[in-house]
C-alpha cells in the first residue's frame, strides 16, 4: 500500500494481563473503539510505528506527484491538463495532511523530509515505475488510486485521531482521482486501434505493480498482528488485494481490456476471482532501490529541496524583519 512493510515492535501482541496499567487502559480504550489523541499516553512502539507508517504514506503522496507531473505539459487537451494539474495538487495536499498528522506525534516535517531525501525512509514501490504513455495517466488513476482507496477507506476508522481525520479528508478527494483515471481509460479503450493498444499496454504494465502495493502476505506477520491490535491497520494485505481484484476485473472487462493473468478466473465456490501473485522478488528489489525509477525519483526530490532553500530562508528572514519593524513601532 502507500505504506508497505511497516515494522512494529516485532515482539507480538501482549495479552491484557501482561500489560502494565497504562498500557492496558490504552489497549482497552482502542478495543472499545475509542480514539487516541496527541497528548494521550501511548506506548513508545505505537508512536514509533505510526510515525513510520504515516511518514511513509506522506512521502508516497509527495513522490507520487512525479510520475503524473511528467505528463502535465503533454496532456492531449487543455481540459485534461487542467484536471491533471488539480489531481497532482491534491496529492501535494494529501502529503501535507499526513505530515501534519505525523507531527502531532513529535517528529517534524523537515525531519521526515530529510529521512526521505537520504533514503532512510521509503515511499510506495509503485512510484518507482515509469509513466511511458498518456494511457498510463488513466491506468495510474484507475489502478493505483483505486488500490490506495481500498486501504484508505478502512483507515478512516484507525485508532489515532489525527490520522483518521486526515484519511477522511483524503478519501473524499480520492474518488475524483480514480474516476478521472477510468475516464481516460474509457476514452482510450473506445478510441482508435492504436489508442486501444496503448490502454492495454498500460494495464499490462501496471497490473502487477498495483497488486504489489498491498505488500506481501502478512497473515503470519507479528508486525501486522501488533498493528491490527492497535487498529493502525484494519485489514490484512491479502484481504485488501482480493477486494481490489474483485472490484477491478469487471471494470477491465467493461473497457474490453484483458487482465494480463492467464490464471485469472471467477471461483463460483468462494465468490471471488482467483488470480496470480505478482513477482515478490521484483517487489523486494524495487524496495531496495533497484526499480526502474528509484534513482530518478530521489534525485528529483533532492533537487526540489535544494533549489527551494533560498525561498525557505528568504521568507524566514523577511518574516523576522517584519516582526522586528512591527515591535519597534510599538
Amino acid at each position: 500500500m502507500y505504506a508497505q512493510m511497516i515494522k512494529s515492535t516485532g515482539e507480538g501482541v501482549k495479552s491484557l494481563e501482561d500489560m502494565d496499567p497504562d498500557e492496558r487502559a490504552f489497549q482497552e480504550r482502542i478495543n472499545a473503539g475509542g480514539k487516541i489523541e496527541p497528548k494521550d499516553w501511548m506506548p513508545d512502539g505505537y508512536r514509533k510505528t505510526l510515525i513510520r507508517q504515516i511518514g511513509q504514506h506522506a512521502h508516497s503522496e509527495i513522490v507520487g506527484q512525479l510520475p503524473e507531473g511528467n505528463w502535465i505539459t503533454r496532456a492531449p487537451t487543455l481540459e485534461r491538463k487542467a484536471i491533471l494539474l488539480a489531481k497532482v495538487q491534491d496529492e501535494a495536499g494529501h502529503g501535507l495532511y499526513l505530515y501534519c498528522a505525523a507531527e502531532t506525534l513529535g517528529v517534524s516535517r523537515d525531519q521526515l523530509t530529510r529521512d526521505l531525501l537520504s533514503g532512510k525512509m521509503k515511499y510506495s514501490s509503485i512510484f518507482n515505475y515509469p509513466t511511458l504513455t498518456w494511457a498510463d495517466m488513466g491506468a495510474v488513476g484507475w489502478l493505483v488510486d483505486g488500490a490506495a482507496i481500498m486501504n484508505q477507506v478502512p483507515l478512516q476508522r484507525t485508532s489515532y485521531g489525527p490520522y483518521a481525520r486526515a484519511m477522511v479528508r483524503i478519501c473524499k478527494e480520492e474518488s475524483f482521482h480514480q474516476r478521472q483515471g477510468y475516464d481516460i481509460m474509457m476514452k482510450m479503450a473506445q478510441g482508435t486501434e492504436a489508442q486501444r493498444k496503448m490502454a492495454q499496454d498500460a494495464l499490462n504494465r501496471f497490473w502487477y505493480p498495483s497488486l504489489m502495493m498491498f505488500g506481501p502476505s502478512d497473515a503470519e506477520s507479528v508486525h501486522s498482528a501488533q498493528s491490527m491490535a492497535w487498529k493502525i491497520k484494519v485489514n490484512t494485505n491479502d484481504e485488501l488485494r482480493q477486494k481490489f481484484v474483485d472490484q477491478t476485473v469487471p471494470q477491465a472487462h467493461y473497457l474490453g481490456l484483458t487482465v494480463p493473468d492467464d490464471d485469472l478466473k471467477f471461483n463460483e465456490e468462494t465468490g471471488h476471482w482467483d488470480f496470480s501473485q505478482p513477482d515478490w522478488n521484483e517487489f523486494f528489489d524495487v524496495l531496495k532501490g533497484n526499480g526502474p525509477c528509484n534513482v530518478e525519483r530521489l534525485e528529483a526530490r533532492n533537487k526540489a529541496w535544494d533549489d527551494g532553500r533560498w525561498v525557505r530562508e528568504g521568507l524566514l528572514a523577511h518574516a523576522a524583519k517584519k516582526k522586528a519593524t512591527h515591535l519597534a513601532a510599538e
Partner: protein
Amino acid sequence: MSSPETSPYKGTEAADHGPARHNEWPLWEIFIRGQHGLSHRHVGSLHAPDAEMAIKNARDVYTRRNEGVSIWAVEADNIAASSPEEKGSLYEPSNAKVYRHPTFFDIPDEVGAM
C-alpha cells in the same frame, strides 16, 4: 514506554521526541468557517513563515473544494490546551449537575411538547 509529556516542543501539540528544530517555518493551526453559518472549525495545521503566508497556504491546502468562506490561522505556540489528566477535575462538576439536562424533569404527556 512513553509518557504523556505535556511540554510541547516548539510549535506542535505533541511531546518532544525529535531533535531541536533549526530554520524551520513555524507551525500554524488552521480554522475554517464553512458556508452554512457554523463557527470556525479546526481542520489541521501547516507550516508558513508568517501569518499572511499561513492564510495563503491554508487556502491551497484546506479549501480546494469550497470548504469555507473564512480562514483563521493561529501560530501553534499561542494555543493553550487542557491536558488529558485534567479530564476529571475539569469536567466532574458538570457531570454531577444532571438537572442541567432537560430530560431530568418529567413532564406529563397531557402537557404536550415542551
